[in-house]
């Protein structure tokens, strides 16, 4: 309304001034005029003054309005220009900021990429180094294991060779003090051999010895017993005549030796360790019982875990407690089952179950076999004895049938002597007639057995000379073994079976 009111005031002022001036002029004119023309002149002057006032008002109004509008247009233009400038400035600022942002973004991205690259490189480097270290550790471990296995194998070979040498010397030297020393060395060597065997087992080397034939249970037990320090405290209770297959015999002996060693070490130094052998449907159970400390449940479980562990890692093995780990390895290798339980003797009992696959039914030592010996030996003795007496009697009375034989096994031996006698005139030259037989027979006749055998004549049936020569051979062998030194060269280590 200011736009409309602001031209109103000067217009009104112009109207007022004009009307006052013109009014005054008219009044003066009217007053001055003769009275006759006063009235028309009044009217005329009044109308002219009115018209003049209106015209002044209109001119003033229009002039002011135009000025006002012009001023408003100027304002609007100025505002417009200002706004345009502001917009341009904003746009420029925006561009600037955008540029800065882009630059900063690029810089950040570059820095990040650089850091990422560095981190990646460091990571790859670390990984590489770790891998390298791992490989080196692995190869170092493998090399150490191989070296240990190799050394253990050589120790085993040495021990085996030494045992064989000692055995030979024990046969050669009859003097008791020498023999005592040899036996002492033998025992020490056997223990050293067991340690080498243990290391070999733990390092995964090939097992020490292979026996070419089945080993009877008694030998297994004694072989195991001979490898520990306190073997004199071990008592064997075995009537089993089973034999362990040759490939497993060494492992069984070794495992048993470790268990015996544990039993002997963890019981009082004077307490006995008892070994029982029991045949069960699943095979043979060997029980090692000591009267030492009773193992707690935890210890029993730990021991069982040690012998049944599936893993082959050597972590957790201490240098002095190799035994159970060795037993575990051997058990896994040969399929033995080892368990522990409290013993009725007050200590701990260790049980080994040998499955049937490891057992051999064939009896490997015929001279010690109950089935063959009674049939064999009396016949041999009878033959030899008859031969010795034959110098006097054989011509006159060619050997009668062995019916009067009193020995318990003669029934089995009976078919044999007639068959041998059927081909010759008598035992004088033996069944083959070889000169050796005759010489052996003659020497046998000269042997001091003669008088004694003759004194016991009623017990001795007459027979043939078939076995006297073989028997005399063994006699000579024994004399030589006991009396004269051997000329066998010492065998090298390489000869030893690994």
């Amino acid at each position, binding site marked *: 309304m200011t736009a409309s009111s602001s031209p109103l005031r000067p217009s009104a002022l112009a109207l007022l001034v004009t009307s006052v001036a013109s009014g005054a002029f008219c009044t003066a004119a009217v007053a001055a005029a003769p009275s006759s023309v006063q009235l028309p002149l009044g009217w005329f002057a009044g109308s002219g003054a009115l018209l003049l006032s209106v015209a002044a008002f209109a001119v003033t109004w229009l002039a002011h309005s135009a000025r006002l509008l012009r001023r408003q247009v100027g304002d609007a233009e100025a505002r417009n220009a200002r706004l345009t400038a502001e917009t341009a400035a904003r746009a420029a600022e925006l561009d600037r900021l955008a540029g800065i942002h882009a630059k900063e973004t690029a810089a950040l991205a570059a820095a990040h990429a650089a850091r990422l690259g560095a981190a990646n490189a460091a990571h790859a480097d670390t990984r590489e180094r770790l891998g390298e270290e791992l490989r080196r550790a692995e190869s170092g471990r493998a090399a150490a294991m191989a070296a240990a296995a190799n050394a253990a194998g050589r120790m085993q070979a040495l021990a085996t060779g030494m045992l064989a040498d000692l055995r030979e010397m024990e046969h050669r030297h009859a003097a008791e003090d020498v023999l005592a020393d040899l036996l002492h060395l033998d025992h020490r060597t056997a223990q050293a051999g067991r340690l080498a065997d243990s290391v070999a087992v733990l390092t995964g080397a090939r097992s020490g010895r292979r026996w070419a034939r089945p080993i009877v249970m008694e030998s297994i037990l004694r072989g195991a017993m001979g490898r520990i320090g306190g073997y004199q405290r071990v008592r064997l209770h075995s009537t089993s005549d089973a034999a362990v297959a040759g490939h497993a015999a060494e492992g069984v002996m070794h495992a048993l030796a470790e268990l015996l060693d544990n039993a002997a070490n963890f019981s009082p130094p004077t307490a006995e360790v008892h070994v029982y052998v029991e045949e069960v449907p699943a095979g043979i159970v060997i029980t090692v019982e000591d009267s030492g400390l009773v193992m707690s449940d935890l210890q029993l479980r730990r021991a069982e875990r040690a012998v049944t562990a599936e893993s082959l890692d050597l972590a957790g093995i201490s240098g002095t407690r190799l035994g159970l780990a060795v037993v575990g390895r051997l058990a896994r290798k040969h399929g033995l089952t080892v368990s522990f339980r409290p013993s009725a003797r007050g200590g701990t009992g260790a049980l080994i179950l040998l499955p049937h696959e490891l057992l051999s039914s064939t009896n490997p030592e015929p001279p010690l076999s109950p089935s063959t010996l009674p049939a064999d030996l009396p016949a041999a003795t009878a033959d030899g004895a008859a031969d010795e007496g034959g110098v006097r009697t054989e011509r006159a009375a060619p050997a009668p049938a062995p019916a009067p034989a009193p020995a318990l096994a003669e029934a089995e031996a009976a078919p044999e002597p007639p068959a041998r006698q059927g081909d010759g005139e008598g035992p004088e030259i033996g069944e083959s007639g070889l000169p050796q037989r005759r010489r052996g027979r003659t020497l046998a006749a*000269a042997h001091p057995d003669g008088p004694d055998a003759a004194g016991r004549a009623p017990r001795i049936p007459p027979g043939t000379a078939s076995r006297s020569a073989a028997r005399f051979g063994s006699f000579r062998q024994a004399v030589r073994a006991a009396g004269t030194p051997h000329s066998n060269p010492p065998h090298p280590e390489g000869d030893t*079976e690994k």
Partner: protein
Amino acid sequence: MSRRRPGRDDSPDRLYTLTGGRSSSGSDVFDLVTLIVAECDPVPGMQSEHAAILRMSRFPTAVVEIAAELELPVSIVRILLADLLGTGRISARHPRTAHGSAHSSYRLPDPDILEQVLVGLRNL
């Protein structure tokens, strides 16, 4: 070579385990030609060498023969025999005891004669 390979054909028994660690029989009853006669049969559970000795010496058998049969040193066999003798399972007879007895015709040949025989054999 026919020699046995060491460690392969041996017995796993060490000799000291046969005798329980003893190396001396503590008696001089046995020499190489002492005759051993079993007084009883082997019983189950006996050490196999003892059982073998008892079976072998059902008829008089010399110590050296037993040693040869068992393939053991004579000293070890002496210890085993001493154990058996101590428990009365065997009796030992020395051949010399027969020498002075009535069977004079069975006495040992004179060493001179044996020597002459040896010389004669060598001259063959």
